[in-house]
């Protein structure tokens, strides 16, 4: 697992529950350290142990915790990069949804070696979509759901999302049904192409 994910889990728990809780979770998980480096790669077992210990200590289910971490990744004010890079996908939430087909390619172009889920958008009738999510890493669909939810808010769109986890022998194959009720529901967060460094 790329350290970016591990580091997000660390930041989310430290920011929301304090560093004592985080170091306690790492101790419970028995991983022998409590600082993840976002530019390094870690064995998948490590994040699994951490998530297991976090769910136990925080008394939360995995999907709910991961969804919150996904939302946190986009809304963290001190880390605008993720939100901004996703907003490059398009000027409206509809355009953004269509850009998800290319997100894996974009992400690996930016960071070669990044292990990233494959996304495929199917548009049914206007405003009704299904997002197919495939990843060998099992159990992370809820993270994508949290990111999607936060991005809808970022665009000021009102959406209804319904997540159905699934799997085949290659890994997870989740479906998220998306109903775009109003793409101009609220004020979008500011985004201009040129405001990044």
């Amino acid at each position: 697992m790329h350290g970016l994910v591990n580091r997000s889990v660390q930041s989310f728990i430290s920011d929301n529950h304090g560093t004592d809780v985080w170091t306690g979770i790492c101790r419970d998980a028995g991983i022998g350290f409590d600082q993840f480096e976002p530019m390094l790669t870690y064995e998948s077992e490590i994040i699994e142990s951490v998530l297991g210990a976090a769910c136990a200590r925080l008394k939360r289910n995995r999907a709910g915790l991961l969804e919150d971490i996904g939302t946190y990744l986009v809304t963290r004010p001190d880390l605008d990069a993720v939100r901004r890079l996703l907003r490059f996908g398009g000027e409206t939430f509809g355009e953004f949804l269509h850009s998800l087909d290319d997100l894996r390619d974009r992400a690996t172009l930016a960071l070669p070696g990044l292990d990233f889920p494959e996304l495929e958008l199917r548009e049914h009738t206007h405003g009704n979509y299904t997002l197919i999510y495939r990843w060998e890493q099992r159990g992370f669909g809820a993270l994508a759901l949290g990111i999607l939810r936060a991005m809808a808010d970022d665009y000021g769109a009102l959406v209804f999302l319904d997540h159905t986890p699934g799997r085949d022998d290659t890994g997870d194959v989740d479906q998220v049904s998306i109903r775009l009720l109003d793409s101009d529901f609220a004020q979008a967060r500011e985004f201009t192409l040129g405001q990044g460094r």
Partner: protein
Amino acid sequence: MAARSGMSATNRRAYRNGPVLGKIGLDRLMPMHLWVGPTGHILRVGPTLQKLCPGMAIVGRRMTEFLEIRRPRGIQLMPDLLARDGAAAQVLLRHDPQVSLKGLIIALPRDQGAILNLAPGISVTELVQKFDLKNKDFAPNDPTVEMLYLIEAQTAILEESKSLNNRLQVARVAAEEQAFTDTLTGLKNRRALDHLLARVTDGGEGRKFGLMHVDLDYFKSVNDTHGHAAGDHVLQTAARIFVQETRAEDIVARTGGDEFVLVLMNCDNTATLNRIAARIIERLEQPIRFGGATCRISASIGTTVSSLYRNPDAAQLCNDADIALYQSKDRGRACFTLFSPD
């Protein structure tokens, strides 16, 4: 492709005339174009190029009043421009010379003038920032937005890599400070010696040991004459000799550039210690070869023993061995001296 004989009359006619884009098509395909009529006046300006000139009426001006063609050189009049059909151009906007654009000159058929299709080139990030350009300001098949995405992603990644490197560097320095080994010779370092000596002297009067302070003679001239690589080799050779001349339970430490401390456990017999010191000097004086060079060194040694003290103290012992060492130096080097409390 040549017109096929199987074409319908309508297709043949369309093919002969060539495609007619229309003004809107032109805007979409080339949002930064400038259409210059046969008299040299601007007939149309693409919407993104207009965005770089806020509030400015461009249509109707002479092209040469609006922009300066830096390359190709010498374009003043319309025939000059038409003659450079297909050439790459570099232009500056006269009202805002900061804006440098690259482009392509296309001469149009049937006396329609020319199109100058412009693009931001390398200054794209500044232009996007300055004029708040958006996705729709670029043709969808133009990779500019993807390029901006990549620049931003790479910048974020570079920042992250830099801070990782800093953290690793800090960790490395901390680890080196905590290390007990001298990386060049593999001997114990000063820190390790302090720890071990404290433990040995804590043993009280019961522990017997000898402490030798060894300083290599003529080492500086090896470094100066044959270089640092030769110097390093000499230090490694000396370290090997110290290890071979002592036992596993003894302590051998490098405490400075060419200074070493040997602690010989369960040995306060001065005759034995002198014999060891003599042997060490004898072996160090053997020529040491490095590449084509032959390095010659020796050593001065000062020794003290635990039985001289009622309560052996590490600092005191080191200090006394040092005094003895300097007596050896004063006696002309390459010899050993036993510390005497008098």
